[in-house]
């Protein structure tokens, strides 16, 4: 798919300029119409909630007078006390799981890429595609049955006596890796494929050790892909809610759980706006993630293909 991308992509863009200048000039008004339903839908169902979120996060309505004024109060409160703890908790969990998953994902991907058996590669890639899409409630319950209080592995290994607790930061880490590692494998296999054997041979022939090869050739070439993958995993773990909700309730401070609490009215009245402000914090962080990921993605694909 990737090789066809650069060759095919200029087609629609370049060809009409030369050949179809006339057609393009005749049709833009109608062409817009085809995209109109999508744009209207996005404006209504995505733009409106996003706008409401932003507006609610930065305004305060006086319940008595009914007046509305702009304020930074909610945002400020969302960055204090328990809310700040939940934000840092989420960031810590996401960074830790993303880092571990990056390392293991790369090791598995490298094992698959260097393997000479095509069947193994196909099986691992298909399994990764499937596992990376696995999350939410079923994942939580599968782990409850495995490592929960009366889970099979917990009982067999008497893990509870060793102080094991699935409903904790460590437990969540173990669970999140279940969908993050396969995601990393999918992301990084094309990059590892792009490392040409010739580079390695060239390095060896000029007397480089394996370590030197990785230090000066392999890792620098892979760096954008690895960082891009890490950032993607971070974003994925950061936005995760259902698994944690089904599992830990409120015992691990995570921003998604705090928002859900505030929304379902489990906190003091008047906290809805803090939920909106927290959501805004999340969007800012997710936006940063994407802002880092997309250029890296483009850059690594330029290097490796």
């Amino acid at each position, binding site marked *: 798919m990737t090789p066809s991308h650069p060759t095919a992509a200029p087609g629609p*863009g370049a060809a009409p300029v030369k050949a179809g200048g006339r057609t393009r000039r005749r049709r833009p008004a109608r*062409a817009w119409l085809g995209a109109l339903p999508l744009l209207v839908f996005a404006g209504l169902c995505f733009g409106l909630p996003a706008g409401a979120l932003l507006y609610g996060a930065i305004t305060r309505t006086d319940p008595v007078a009914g007046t509305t004024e702009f304020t930074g109060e909610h945002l400020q409160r969302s960055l204090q006390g328990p809310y700040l703890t939940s934000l840092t908790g989420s960031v810590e969990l996401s960074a830790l799981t993303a880092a571990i998953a990056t390392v293991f994902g790369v090791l598995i991907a490298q094992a698959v890429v260097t393997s000479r058996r095509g069947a193994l590669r196909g099986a691992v890639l*298909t399994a990764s595609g499937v596992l990376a899409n696995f999350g939410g409630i*079923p994942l939580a319950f599968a782990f409850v049955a495995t490592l929960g209080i009366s*889970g099979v592995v917990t009982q067999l290994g008497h893990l509870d006596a060793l102080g094991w607790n699935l409903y904790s930061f460590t437990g969540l880490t173990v669970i999140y890796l279940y969908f993050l590692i396969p995601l990393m494998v999918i992301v990084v296999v094309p990059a590892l494929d792009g490392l040409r054997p010739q580079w390695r041979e060239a390095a060896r022939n000029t007397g480089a050790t394996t370590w030197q090869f990785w230090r000066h050739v392999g890792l620098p070439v892979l760096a954008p892909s690895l960082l891009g993958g890490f950032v993607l995993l971070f974003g994925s773990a950061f*936005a995760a809610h259902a698994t944690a909700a089904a599992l830990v309730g409120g015992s691990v401070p995570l921003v998604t759980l705090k928002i859900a609490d505030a*929304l379902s009215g489990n906190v003091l009245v008047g906290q809805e706006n803090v939920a909106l402000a927290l959501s805004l914090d999340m969007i800012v962080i997710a936006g940063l993630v994407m802002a880092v990921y997309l250029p890296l993605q483009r850059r690594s694909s330029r290097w490796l293909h």
Partner: protein
Amino acid sequence: MAALTTAAPEALAPVKARRTRPRYWRGAVLAIAGLYFVTPLLSSFVFTVHVPNQGLTFEAYSGILSADGFTESLFLSLSLAAATIALALLLVVPALVAVRLGPPRLRAVVEVVCMLPLVVPPIALVTGIATVLRWGPDHFSRTPLYQTFLAVQNESFPVVLVLAYTVLALPFVHRSLDAGLRAVDVPTLVEAARNCGASRLQVIVGVILPNLRSSLAGASFLTLALVLGEYTVASLLGFRPFAVWIVTVSGAEARMSVAVSLLSLLITWALLLVLSRAGTGSATTAVPAAAPTPVPGKE
């Protein structure tokens, strides 16, 4: 990276040693990974069929169909999925065709619009939606618009969930269809069909869509998997589709909730496997299409 450091000294060793060495770390890595990924599935199964002090029983599975609320919630999820797939395809297909016929700037606009939901996690989207829904009783209770607010939140078929899921599915659907359309020379096909006297609708239904069969299947499967597993939006808006039902039933029937999780997992996997085999017979189109997108759907 441990493998690299252990591999370093062997660079000086003879060629023969190099061939055998990597096999150990490869085998070890794959064995550990296999253990980690298979154990939860196996123990889930054991958990559901083995009751301590009672031995083997399949009650957890046989009781599912008669369980309170199971059929309703599954039916709700499936109909939501069907509606979401229909709406998403109806919106994205014409837009992507238009992008290829219209001004180049339209392409960037459509792409940004479809990718924006990646930046907004589902939980943030649902806070926004909840805020908008609260405007109904607050501001519009005496206007005809209020009826719309009520209709959208109808218990038996919450349209608001279809709308939210369509937003969440846009990046998947866009990516899958865009990849499919890349292999199709849309302007030429459209021009040829128009010259033969086909109407605009005929062009899309008779010429473009058959060329997109595998990406349409891919987009539909991914959307189906997303809707069947979705919990965050539905639970926070107070509806009870499949994933929410699993959580409600887990309190009283732990075994059954695990059994249903396992089954829903296997069904989703079967769907995704079909997807990766579907169409032009290449796992290469399906896997990358599915790959970077799980970000928003992931919960």
